[in-house]
């Protein structure tokens, strides 16, 4: 049958062209994110000292000359350690968020298209995981399997995929009742086609806005675990680890633990500023769904 019909101009949609202008806060956010991405990639080559090099005999030595932010609790250069651990902090969270977004949106839209008992079973399972406080779920899983980097990434991705699932399903529900999806169903397209060519392109912008928010959640979550001593293990370190190990200096007035925490905060604030612009351009209706 397909051969006899004239070639249709196009079946389904391609991604709509991104059309939004960044506001000033959004531009600042984009600049902060770009800055840290550059640091993450080039940092290991540019940092004045290595991760484990000692620059002082005293822990928490004050900033002086080449030692921009002072020494950490063992006398290593804090600035270099922040620069060196940027890629791990940002990389782990990014991979985790990619997992969350792809698994969550594929499952969510699939559930919306299928409906019926398939939707019910998936939703119930997701709801159960969602009824765990995120940090508790993380603690139980880490207690069981130990904090390896691969596990931390996979775990974070799966935990946040439950939130993405809810948004994607809600978006999918709205889109699957549209005429063009009904037409595709009537044409006899299979679920995969409808998911990737009919529904997903129309849900893309809010899902991208959600990606930004989700990435900032992932960074905060992974840093919190590291801060509790249950995240990335030595000799590796992320920004959360740096905050944790320098905490003892705080009582003595050393700001060493504040700098890596500021690094985390600047990145997550940047993400929020950009995501706000995205959410604004994709309609405020979406904001309600994200909350």
């Amino acid at each position: 049958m397909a051969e006899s019909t004239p070639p249709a101009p196009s079946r389904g949609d391609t991604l709509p062209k991104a059309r939004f202008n960044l506001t000033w806060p959004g531009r600042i956010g984009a600049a902060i994110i770009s800055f840290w991405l550059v640091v993450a990639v080039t940092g290991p080559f540019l940092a004045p000292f290595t991760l484990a090099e000692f620059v002082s005999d005293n822990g928490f030595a004050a900033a002086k000359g080449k030692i921009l932010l002072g020494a950490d609790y063992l006398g290593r250069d804090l600035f270099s350690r922040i620069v060196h651990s940027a890629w791990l902090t940002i990389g782990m969270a990014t991979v985790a968020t990619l997992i969350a977004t792809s698994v969550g949106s594929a499952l969510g839209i699939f559930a919306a298209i299928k409906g019926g008992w398939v939707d019910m079973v998936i939703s119930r399972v997701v709801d159960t995981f969602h009824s765990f406080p995120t940090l508790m779920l993380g603690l139980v899983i880490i207690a069981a399997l130990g904090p390896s980097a691969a596990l931390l990434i996979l775990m974070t991705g799966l935990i946040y995929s439950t939130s993405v699932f809810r948004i994607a399903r809600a978006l999918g529900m709205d889109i699957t009742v549209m005429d063009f999806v009904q037409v595709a169903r009537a044409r006899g397209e299979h679920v995969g086609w409808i998911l990737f060519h009919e529904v997903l392109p129309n849900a893309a912008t809010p899902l991208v806005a959600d990606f930004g928010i989700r990435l900032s959640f992932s960074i905060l979550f992974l840093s919190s675990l590291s801060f509790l001593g249950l995240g990335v293990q030595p000799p590796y370190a992320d920004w959360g680890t740096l905050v944790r190990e320098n905490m003892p200096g705080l009582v003595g007035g050393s700001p060493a633990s504040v700098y890596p925490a500021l690094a985390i905060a600047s990145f997550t604030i940047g993400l929020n500023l950009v995501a706000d612009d995205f959410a604004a351009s994709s309609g405020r209706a979406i904001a309600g769904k994200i909350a």
Partner: protein
Amino acid sequence: MLKLILQRLAIGILTLWLVTILVFVGTQLLPGDVAQAVLGQSATPEAVAALRIEMGLNQPAIVRYGSWVSGLLHGELGNSLANGASISGLIGQRLPNTLLLAGLTAMLVVPAAIGLGLASAMYPESVFDRAVSVVTMFLLAIPEFLLATLLVLVFAVQLRWLPAISYVSEYRSLEQLARTMALPVLTLSLVLLAQMARMTRSTILNILSSSYIEMAVLKGVRRHRIVFRHALVNAMGPIANVIALNLAWLVSGVVIVETVFAYPGLAKLIVDGVASRDYPVIQSCAMIFCAAYILFILLADIASILSNPRLRQRRD
């Protein structure tokens, strides 16, 4: 309506049951043998075998699950693997501290957040509203431990007004208690305040955009009368929903704050438990946290059912 509430209650209990399975399976997944882990690598095989029997590890998992759940229901939580102390005793010491921290925070934040949210919703896009929106966005985007460390640097190190670490057991007077609790409560409160004020604002704005409010505006009713007589009455339910959801957030919020200030609460107990793989402690604490969380979510659901006439009157 009653049917709908009972339905939610049933779902809550079902979820709690699924959570017990998840927690149990999770803590049984420990790679290697728990008995081996407790005794260390140098233990003789005989000692490990004896401990396995003592801990009941030779029984099938389903039997162990059954006895764990029945123990939970009877309040028999077993003993800590790390130091052999009774877990009920440990929790008895720590739980009041956590409840004190969370309770004080809630008492401070709930009225403040509703006031702030209401004020920003009454004058949307005003300078005040924008300022609140920016400040709360920053507070929510930064990690809790940054806020905590900054507060310590300012109030404990620079000004020397408050202690940096909160050993609650040391207090003797009410004043001392207040000083010890001040920084942990302040940290938690700022984050909770930001979250709750934002949610309250959007809830009220949502109601202010409904058609009966437009009607009142067209009739010429004054602004504060619209907000207090028309909107606020209808916002009670949604706001109760917001309060319950945010109290649920406190369940994970206390974890970081208790760790920063070395506050001897339940969260500190579970974090230490995870570090030393003390699985009976993890199981019990995780169940308490999850039960509290599910309870608050349930209360949030019930609040929105009670406040929505369409749900309240539903016949089916």
